[in-house]
């Protein structure tokens, strides 16, 4: 829906749908995966119809996420190439986290933090997919050493990734006016000028 014709377009409908498929499958994967991770989380399997169903469904959802992430990755990697100003931004990121963004260097469509997360997630997704396939006993029978390494990597990277996605989601909640980019696909000009001035100037010509 168009809210204000002067809002700036950030994402197309298909990009948003793509992101939601990745996001929803990630949540399903995290909840079902955690149920095998430690007994404290075991009851989470009830959300999937019990432990056996959680075990059966998890890898299929994984395949869905791997494919949809790959598409999102190919769509956005060019926009996420790190530049000098991203490094400068990252060096000052602690000031912003501390509540003062007045001295932050001007940013393009994505800031250094978002770009760093993008590449870190790319690596994690790759590791999760490879290790997930190694331990998928319904279809595959890999060498025992590979399976042991797989289960270790899968559990370790899952913890790292859940942490990173928590930060990703929190950043969207913290920076007001961001979440709507995932609903409407647009952001206000003020939002863009404040957080991504380089991109604001590029799209508005100001």
């Amino acid at each position, binding site marked *: 829906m168009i809210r204000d014709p002067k809002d700036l377009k950030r994402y197309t409908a298909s990009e948003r749908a793509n992101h939601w498929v990745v996001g929803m499958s990630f949540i399903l994967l995290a909840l079902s995966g955690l149920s095998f991770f430690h007994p404290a989380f075991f009851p989470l399997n009830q959300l999937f119809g019990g432990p056996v169903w959680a075990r059966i469904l998890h890898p299929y959802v994984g395949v869905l996420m791997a494919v949809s992430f790959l598409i999102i990755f190919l769509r956005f990697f060019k926009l996420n190439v790190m530049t000098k100003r991203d490094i400068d931004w990252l060096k000052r990121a602690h000031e912003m986290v501390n509540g003062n963004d007045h001295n932050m260097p001007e940013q393009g469509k994505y800031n250094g933090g978002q770009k760093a997360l993008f590449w870190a997630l790319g690596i994690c997704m790759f590791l999760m997919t490879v290790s997930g396939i190694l331990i998928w*006993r319904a279809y595959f029978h890999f060498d*025992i050493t590979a399976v042991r390494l797989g289960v270790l990597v899968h*559990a370790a990277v899952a913890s790292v990734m859940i942490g990173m996605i928590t930060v990703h989601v929190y950043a969207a909640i913290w920076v007001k006016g961001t979440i709507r980019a995932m609903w409407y696909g647009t952001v206000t000009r*003020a939002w863009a*000028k404040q*957080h991504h001035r380089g991109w604001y100037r590029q799209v508005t010509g100001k």
Partner: protein
Amino acid sequence: MPLQSLDIKRRSATTTESTQARTPIEVAKLIDVSTCIGCKACQVACSEWNELREEVGENIGVYDNPTDLSAQAWTVMRFSEVETAGKLEWLIRKDGCMHCADPGCLKSCPSPGAIIQYKNGIVDFNEEFCIGCGYCVTGCPFNIPRISKEDGKAYKCSLCSDRVAVGQEPACVKTCPTGAISFGSKEDMTELAARRVEDLKSRGYENAGLYDPAGVGGTHVMYVLHHADKPELYSGLRKDPSISPMVSLWKGVTKPLATLAMASVVLGSLFHYVTKGPNEVSRKVEEEIEKEDAQ
């Protein structure tokens, strides 16, 4: 299968104590490889007692049949022909679960109570709670558990826990025609083994010995081997087995620590929000845009 008459020492994926009040004796099965003739009566007794029927396979040129453990074959005889000191030896080992004191299968299992260790030492799978993930296969240092193709559950030798619970010996022990398999308290079996080892030594097998590997805390199925210095001769029986360090790392303190780390990221975010406040567009930028619109 959990049995009321057997106290449980440990259950899988359980962080509180299991029943600890009673202290029954530890049991053990002793397999004397030197007196085994490979007749497979124990295999038959196992499938009779446990109602298991492996499909009739093909002859692959050696005596191994079935050729591997499966959900329908909880014990198999493994035959190997080896030359030691220029002389051919036919070594026959009855393979199956070792009932480790420190079981890698139980350590790996994510389903509460799907694997239990009774206080008498038997490690038992409770298939009712099995979710079919195969983590027990990943954790076992002896490559024992098998996932059934029919129901997706893990199966292995139960040391006839149902028979032991009512004071009987396992079916294989009862059947063995040469007396190569004995069953009793672990203490008695260790003593019996010592006598057998002494006898073997007196007959020229100077490396004879008991296989009760300390790396897994000892086992409740033990072997008397004529070549205890080279267990690999017996169809790859592992020398000094232990739970893989990768499995220990995966299932050790790392998990509670990772859980703590994930929880602190969530809580950290919440408290960041309430201590720093949300990151709104500044009044100044808003005014600039409003001014633009008014023009």
